[in-house]
């Protein structure tokens, strides 16, 4: 009796793990399909970059994105500043594109919403991305938070809020927290008047973290953007 019960429990447990693995995989693939369905977008944005050694006011501009990894901020005569390399400001680049192992890591509440956490480990050894931990709102099928560990860029956290474009999996608001290195010029060169004060927004961040906050005002999705838009020359008059 006991043995049978134990067996039943073991089978049920195995089934459960298998089922949850299958569920997690399914969840990841569904989410990925939704995110990858956006081939390009043009969005009017407001961007706030908070890095310890940078003092940048809120930037308004148009953000162009084209899959897989092209991104440009157009500031209409102003300067455009974007993080370099992999730290692109779109969720698409934080999600492994190829085969990956997906593990269910339980549930958690984010902003009062119930989410399922999945851990994704890319099978590609050369990928910079080592691990992605995704908090998925299963009802809307969107990621509310992603934490990634990379080989070269440290850790990265992206928090997302959705509104009008939730059906496309595109956020209205995005907060990226990233690692930044320090910056220093020889003092004699610049002849500073005063020491700089740290950004108010960074008061709470420990160590050398920076944040980039983007508010998306509107999107135009899948309009077939030309590659030309993304060449650096296009932005320089």
């Amino acid at each position, binding site marked *: 009796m006991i043995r049978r019960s134990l067996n039943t429990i073991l089978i049920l447990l195995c089934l459960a793990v298998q089922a949850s693995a299958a569920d997690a995989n399914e969840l990841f693939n569904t989410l990925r399909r939704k995110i990858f369905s956006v081939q390009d977008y043009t969005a009017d944005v407001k961007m706030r970059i908070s890095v310890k*050694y*940078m*003092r*940048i*006011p809120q*930037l308004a501009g148009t953000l162009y994105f084209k899959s897989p990894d092209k991104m*440009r901020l157009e*500031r209409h*005569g*102003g*300067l*455009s*500043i*974007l*993080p*370099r390399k992999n730290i692109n400001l779109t969720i698409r680049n934080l999600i492994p594109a190829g085969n990956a192992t997906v593990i269910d890591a339980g549930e958690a509440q984010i902003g009062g919403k119930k989410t399922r956490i999945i851990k994704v480990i890319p099978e590609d050894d050369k990928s910079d991305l080592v691990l992605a931990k995704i908090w998925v709102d299963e009802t809307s099928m969107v990621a509310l938070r992603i934490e990634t560990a990379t080989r070269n860029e440290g850790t990265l956290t992206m928090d997302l809020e959705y509104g009008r474009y939730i059906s496309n999996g595109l956020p209205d608001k995005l907060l990226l927290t990233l690692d*930044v*290195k*320090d*910056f*220093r*010029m*020889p*003092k*004699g*060169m*610049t*002849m*500073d*008047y*005063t*020491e*700089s*004060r740290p950004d108010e927004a960074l008061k709470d961040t420990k160590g050398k973290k920076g944040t980039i906050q983007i508010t998306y005002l509107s999107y135009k999705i899948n309009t077939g953007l030309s590659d030309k838009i993304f060449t*650096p020359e296009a*932005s*320089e*008059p």
Partner: protein
Amino acid sequence: MKQLLQIELFKIFRRPRTYISFGIVTAITFVIQLAMLTDGKSYMSFALQGVNEQFDIHGNMINGYFITYIILQTLLIQIPLLVALVAGDTLAGEATLGTLRLLLTKPISRNQLILAKFMSSFIYTVLLVIWLAIVALGLSVLIFGRGDMVNIKSDTFILILQNDVLWRYAAAFCFAMLAMTTIASLSILLSVFADNSIGPIISTMGIVVVLTILSNLDLPLFNHIKPYIFTTHMIGWKGFFDDPVPVRQIGISALVLIVYTVAFAGTTLLVFNKKDIKS
């Protein structure tokens, strides 16, 4: 008094040396603009090494606003010489020329004369800074266009939106006028002690150079006296390009400069009123 001031201004602006200053400002501005036109990109990428590692910055960074800042930074070390060229000459030059003798045999008080010299030097200084604003800011914007302004401090990268720049320059030029007035005041003071104009001009420059070095040396010994040296506060104009603008610090700097200016002027009056004119 009005007449005395008119005469002082007439004398200043009838002398070729006065226009040399305006010419030098123009020439240095041109040189920097030319250098930026040819080498601006490499200058910028050198300055932005640290930032460029992590951020992609695109757009017209080497614009008129950025270049004006570079020009100001460079020129505000040379302009004291140009101010001294005229202010240091106001009394000593007349002593050399012998006209101070004739001037003081006229029924004008020495206080009035000094005041007129101060005011005329001040007007000259203001005009010189306005001219600097025209050639540095006006011409640079004309050549390099407008754009968001990048300001690089030793530990900070500051971006100022283009529609947020002009008021800062207006304030910075006003502050520069104050700083240069302090220099003019110092020159006139030194001018009282000399019977030739080279002395006060060289001494003014010497004092400015030595104190500027003191202000910029990062040694604990000097850190205590730095707040009391006027050259430390002469770069207060840079504060207007910081974020947030250190209003309190700029106010203190302006106050220090005003105190120095008044002290120099007061000492000038005191010394000159007791001075035997032997030249």
